[in-house]
């Protein structure tokens, strides 16, 4: 008799338990926070709060490594297995925006999902940075760009004043030279990675594209910037040899107190403070040759809805919650993530935090990464050009001219 009870009980649990879950709308979310990080914990808490207020929705968060997210999402979408909601960087939209499966884009145009009033709560520049052609592909929740971060203890040990917002690159170089002693270098910068070079390029008056989106990698300012930035290692020795192409090596070098200054984003701030560093932050310097300030690429992180999601209304509700002032504020204050919410700009807790407000000021002078196919194709030729100049095989003008031609021909394919 007992033997019959067990399968019956299991069957009941399966049928009725299944029905209980069947009433809820499932929403699968792919996120990119590092495992067990503070960001991930805050994200889980935000999801928990959302589920409590939306009992009809069942959220299933899935962690995907940041560097693999783009390709995994494209592959999943091509197989018809895309998640409902995905965390993407505005820099990825240029690549993902052109992908089509059976003629359909991979991401939902969010314009019909937001009222103008909901939209107006987010910074208009952030919203525009999430558009591909005319479609709005992501709801921006944070923004970040490179900034000048320095180790106060090293400056104090040398009796030098901290970097200031009115610094020029010459000031930065001069101090970096003074601070380069023994194992310690004045600067830790991945000078051979295009993302860092672009910050210098803008300072020297160059930019990646003209008003019509045609590549302009070969401008005079671009070549000057490339020579100047590579000279930090090759001529002045303020950047450690061989670290210029390795972002992680540069991070480790600064973390270990082997560099006085670094050019990095708020995303690494916590790992530096956790390493016991006494940090300060300043705006990236100006370039006397052009009179302009270095303007790094500004990347926005946002939540995008898959075109294939069968539950877009519920998913949009979750995306709006994750972009709400409440969630953005918590992330900003606890993880130094500059928010995109308009009202948080004047939040006393945020403006009162010198470093966070410093990062926000830096984003204000940064340049949003274009969400175009050209941008997604620019990285490869740029890195090749930098490498060829670094190894002495080409001069900056010739290398950038070749990179420009290569990008133009890739765009024609």
């Amino acid at each position, binding site marked *: 008799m007992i033997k019959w009870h067990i399968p019956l009980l299991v069957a009941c649990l399966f049928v009725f338990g299944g029905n209980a879950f069947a009433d809820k709308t499932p929403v699968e979310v792919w996120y990119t926070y590092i495992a067990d990080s503070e960001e991930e914990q805050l994200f889980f808490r935000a999801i928990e709060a959302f589920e409590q207020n939306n009992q009809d929705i069942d959220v299933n968060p899935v962690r995907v490594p940041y560097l693999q997210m783009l390709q995994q999402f494209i592959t999943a979408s091509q197989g018809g297995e895309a998640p409902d909601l995905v965390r993407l960087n505005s820099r990825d939209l240029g690549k993902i925006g052109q992908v089509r*499966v059976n003629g359909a884009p991979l991401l939902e145009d969010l314009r019909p999902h937001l009222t103008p009033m909901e939209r107006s709560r987010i910074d208009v520049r952030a919203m525009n940075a999430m558009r591909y052609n005319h479609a709005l592909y992501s709801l921006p929740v944070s923004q970040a760009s490179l900034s000048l971060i320095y180790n106060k203890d090293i400056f104090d040990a040398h009796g030098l004043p901290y970097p200031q917002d009115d610094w020029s690159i010459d000031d930065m170089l001069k101090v970096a030279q003074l601070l380069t002693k023994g194992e310690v270098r004045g600067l830790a910068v991945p000078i051979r990675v295009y993302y860092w070079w672009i910050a210098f390029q803008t300072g020297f008056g160059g930019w990646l594209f003209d008003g019509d989106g045609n590549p302009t990698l070969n401008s005079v300012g671009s070549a000057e910037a490339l020579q100047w930035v590579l000279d930090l290692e090759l001529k002045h020795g303020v950047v450690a040899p061989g670290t210029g192409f390795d972002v992680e090596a540069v991070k480790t070098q600064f973390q270990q107190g082997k560099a006085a200054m670094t050019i990095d984003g708020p995303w690494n701030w916590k790992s530096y403070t956790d390493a016991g560093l006494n940090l300060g932050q300043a705006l990236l310097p100006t370039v006397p040759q052009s009179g302009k300030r270095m303007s790094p690429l500004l990347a926005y992180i946002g939540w995008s809805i898959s075109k294939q999601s069968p539950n877009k209304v519920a998913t949009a509700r979750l995306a709006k919650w994750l972009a709400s002032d409440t969630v953005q504020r918590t992330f900003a204050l606890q993880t130094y993530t500059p928010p995109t919410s308009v009202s948080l700009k004047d939040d006393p807790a945020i403006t009162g935090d010198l470093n966070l407000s410093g990062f926000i000021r830096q984003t204000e002078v940064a340049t949003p990464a274009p969400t175009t196919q050209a941008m997604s194709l620019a990285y490869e030729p740029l890195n090749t050009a930098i490498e060829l100049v670094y190894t002495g095989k080409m001069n900056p003008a010739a290398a950038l001219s070749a990179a420009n031609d290569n990008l133009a021909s890739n765009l024609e394919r």
Partner: protein
Amino acid sequence: MTRIAPLPPVIAGLLFFLLSLSVNAGTLTEVRVVSEAQKYRTIQIEVSVTDARDVDRYEVWFSEQPFRTLTDALLHSQVQVADTSRLERVPEGAAYEDCWEDGLPTHRDPFGSPVISPAAKRWSCQLTGLIPNTDYWIAVVAVDYSGQLLSGQDSLSPIKTRTDIPDQLPAPPDTRPVLSILTSIVICLLALFIYLRRQDMRSGKASANVAHAYVAPALIALAVLSFYPIVYGIWLSFTDAHQSRLGQESFIGLTNFVEVFTSPGFGRVTLFTIIWSVANVTAHVGFGLMLALVLTKAHLKGKLFYRTILLMPWAIPAYISILAWKGILQTDGLFNNILGTEIELLSQVTSAQVLVILVNIWLGIPFMMMSLSGALMAIPGDMYEAADLDGVSKWDQFIHLTLPNLKSTITPLSLLGFIWSFNMFTVIYLITRGNPSVDFGQPGATDILITYVYDVAFDYGRYGVAAAWSVIIFLMLVAFSWVYVKKTKATEAVA
């Protein structure tokens, strides 16, 4: 109790009509829903204006419940009334939502909000962000420069509306071609089985039926997991498949193959792939055999310890070993730390090429060592005793006894090793990702064919061209294997 007399039907109908038009005193004469312009999560309204004097903006308010005052509703959107002479009209589809004034797209302020001229007689706007199949009450009010509602709009009569337009999901991937190809492959296999079975029956091998039955599941699994991807890859290589038009590719003949053969880096990357494969196989077999010979020496003490140590590279997951090597070889890694140098081993072409080959050699030796140890132990010891009695030198024993006896093992192993090395993706991808760069649009200095295919497919999204590269790799390996087997008579040796 006073009873209110029912209104005559004509008057009641008129009143109902007027209410449904949401007539607001003042500047608005009519607000109507443009039913034919409904979209997913979007309703379009049209507002007729008689007098826009003193109007600063129109506000659209909405609620899921009927409301009489704005405190019970939410502000949906605003349309500014201002001089538009210095503003641009934004074409349809370009703004966040479309709005029109007197039939033309409205002008927009720097923030993208719609602005209409005071002279406009009619404007319409899409109201986005509404949930499908939900009733909404919508009211439009005119607001003056001081932020006050214009007279007569304190008591609102919002119009009730809804959008029932469902979400347009993209068509699911068409699996019919996949199923038909798989079915064809399975049918071909079944036909082959039936044919072979008949042949066996004719030759009196009745027991072979059972053998066919045993082989069948594995063959069907192979058909699904291996044959189909190969067939699909070959098909893709003749199409213009690209990530921007997946599922809509068309046949383009040999264009992709022409592009591959004429691409500037083809010869270089093929040469390095051959150098990489030959160097790896030679070293794997050479060092593997040498270590196997040492470890099979009868008098060697601590064999188990040595075996365990030598098996370590094989026992640890490959990606961990590879990343550990990367950590050692990078500029701030262990190698430079020990020597006190800052040599960029992975940035220089030659050193990077040599190092990725060395790491792969290190990874592959244990497998060869173990396989050859087994083969060495299977050689009868009395042959060596007889050779010793005949005074044959150890070197001659190795050349004339050991090697011939190992041929049946070494030949298929080296063939397998060559194919594995040729297609070894992980080492190069994790250590250098094909870098350092050599020239624009070309494979990197440490790219081999298989790693470059990955870049073509996933960095550039050119699936057709990547498939052509893959087919060429496949053909190269088939040709090599065929020649190798013919020359070495490998299958005969195994048999």
